């Protein structure tokens, strides 16, 4: 019942949105983007007359540094957007997505840090493209043999891959430097108007802005891809791989593409993350995070870019915000601690009542409806 009601509501919003003139829609999107850029600024809240200090409200969190929370959220959103290409568009269940994120982060760390055994001391900016390449190439290498597998098998192999990366990083003392990790990773370059470095330790805002900009660029690229022949091939593969093949879609090639693009986005995210954190070790790349990104994609609505954004943002931001609310009303409850538990329950509930996600993709919703129909025993038509 709720599902149908919600569908109608979103459909109403969608058709009203589509009916608006193009200029209005672009203006609305531009306004939203500007708002997102303003979000971490203190003066914005002062200007609006919101109290800042010990009292928090609305979407502010008690985390001493709101920009830091926003940055983490943005990291998560970009990861979700990348995973959405693999899981949502092409329908490949990839549980090892975080492995590529780790590869991106470690590539930057090893190439740039003076503490690295490589001793290359590259500037941060030079290492980023290489990190993306490394992630992408490992995506192709892992995908080559495994994408011939379907469904559950692929999930298991990718899961193993992510754990391999993490375990290697935690046990290998030579290159990855084990639990001690790699410190002293340089920040992104740039000097502010005051002569100080743009990207420092204290202020997380520049990192958030950088991340936000990258999200916007990646979104544009992926959106174009989704609307192209490649995107149509992905949808066909997701809906019926055999049928796609006999329509003349080179299924293996396009699955590999989806996998590699997802890996590249994860690698990019990892590279930025390393640049902000300045220190990484294997503890930052645990399996739970991999699952959490997947939960975010499913929660938001796999196959829909907007869904991935909403899912990613909620999954990371909401617990942080709840922590703030808890502090405000004097309850010492850390929602972030229960993140995995709560999202486990939420995902199960979603799968029962609204499997297509919060912001569903029209096609995806029809696919689920179709699958449900198959599950119900149908009346058999007698042969004669």
């Amino acid at each position, binding site marked *: 019942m709720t599902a149908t009601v919600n569908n109608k509501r979103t459909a109403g919003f969608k058709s009203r949105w589509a009916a608006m003139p193009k200029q209005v829609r672009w203006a609305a999107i531009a306004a939203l983007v500007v708002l997102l850029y303003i979000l971490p600024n203190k003066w914005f809240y002062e200007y609006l007359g919101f109290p800042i200090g010990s009292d928090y409200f609305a979407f502010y969190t008690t985390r001493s540094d709101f920009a830091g929370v926003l940055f983490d959220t943005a990291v998560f959103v970009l990861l979700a957007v990348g995973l959405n290409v693999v899981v949502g568009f092409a329908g490949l269940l990839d549980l090892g997505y975080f492995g590529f994120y780790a590869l991106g982060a470690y590539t930057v760390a090893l190439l740039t840090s003076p503490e690295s055994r490589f001793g290359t001391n590259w500037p941060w900016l030079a290492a980023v493209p290489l990190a993306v390449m490394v992630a992408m190439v490992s995506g192709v290498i892992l995908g080559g043999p495994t994408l011939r597998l379907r469904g559950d098998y692929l999930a298991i192999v990718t899961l193993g891959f992510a754990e391999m990366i993490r375990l290697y990083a935690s046990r290998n003392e030579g290159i990855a430097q084990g639990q001690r990790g790699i410190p002293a990773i340089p920040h992104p370059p740039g000097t502010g108007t005051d002569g100080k470095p743009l990207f420092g330790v204290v202020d997380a805002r520049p990192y958030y802005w950088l991340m936000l900009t990258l999200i916007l660029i990646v979104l544009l690229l992926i959106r174009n891809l989704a609307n192209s022949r490649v995107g*149509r091939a992905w949808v*066909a593969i997701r*809906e*019926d791989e*055999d049928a796609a093949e006999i329509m*003349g879609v080179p299924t293996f090639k396009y699955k590999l593409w989806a996998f590699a693009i997802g890996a590249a986005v994860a690698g990019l995210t990892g590279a930025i993350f390393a640049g902000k954190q300045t220190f990484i070790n294997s503890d930052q790349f645990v399996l739970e995070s991999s699952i959490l990104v997947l939960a975010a994609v499913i929660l938001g609505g796999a196959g829909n870019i907007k869904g991935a954004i909403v899912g990613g943002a909620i999954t990371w931001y909401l617990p942080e915000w709840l922590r703030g609310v808890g502090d405000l009303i004097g309850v010492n409850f850390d929602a972030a601690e229960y993140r995995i538990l709560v999202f486990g329950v939420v995902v199960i509930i979603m799968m029962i009542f609204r499997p297509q996600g919060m912001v569903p993709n029209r096609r995806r919703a*029809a696919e689920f*409806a179709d*699958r449900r*129909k198959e599950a119900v025993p149908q009346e058999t038509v007698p042969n004669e």
Partner: protein
Amino acid sequence: MLLEINDLTLLYGRIQALHGISLTVNEGEVVALIGANGAGKTTTMRAISGLRPVAQGSIIFDGTDVTRMRADLRVVRGIGQAPEGRGVFPGMSVVENLEMGAYTRRDRGGIAEDMKMVMDLFPRLAERRKQAGGTLSGGEQQMLAVGRALMARPRLLLLDEPSMGLAPMLIQQIFEIITRINEQGTTILLVEQNAQQALSRAHRGYVLETGRIVKEGTGQDLLHDPAVKEAYLGVA
């Protein structure tokens, strides 16, 4: 000869599904492949379209050996298929499904023409243009699957059980359309359990039993063959 299959063997794991079958399809023909459940009809189709790897034997299409060719490249060569169980894309609309059928083509004009041709052939699809494939009725899905296969402008059209699960009136209709498609110049290889209809429409036919071809002949010959009658037509 448009299609020539020589001594084809196919395995599902250790189970042998096809025991060296040979058959030919000439340009312009309708050829029917009949047999009971599990005889290997669908397996043969999947081998021809490339969805299933072949153990031994060869598949020659239009003079080219396609035995080991990737399925998507066979489509480019001119082998189109409407798969068993319809296999329409459930989340795509009727039009989007048909557009997927023309995935290998880039001639926009020709695609638009064929789209119109399919809509004329199946007026029901024209009515349901924007409806998602998964929400169509069984008969409509069947029409969509056939129409979608036509969108590739195949030289050889493989139809796997086009009458499966359809009401008698719809069966009649779909076979009439199959004849019409053939008259417009497309060669057809048809797999059917409905032997009566298939054989009366086909130029030639093959009878498949547990992975072997046990009989072949013209459609009319097979229709009047006592053994075929007893086994597949339900008359003693």
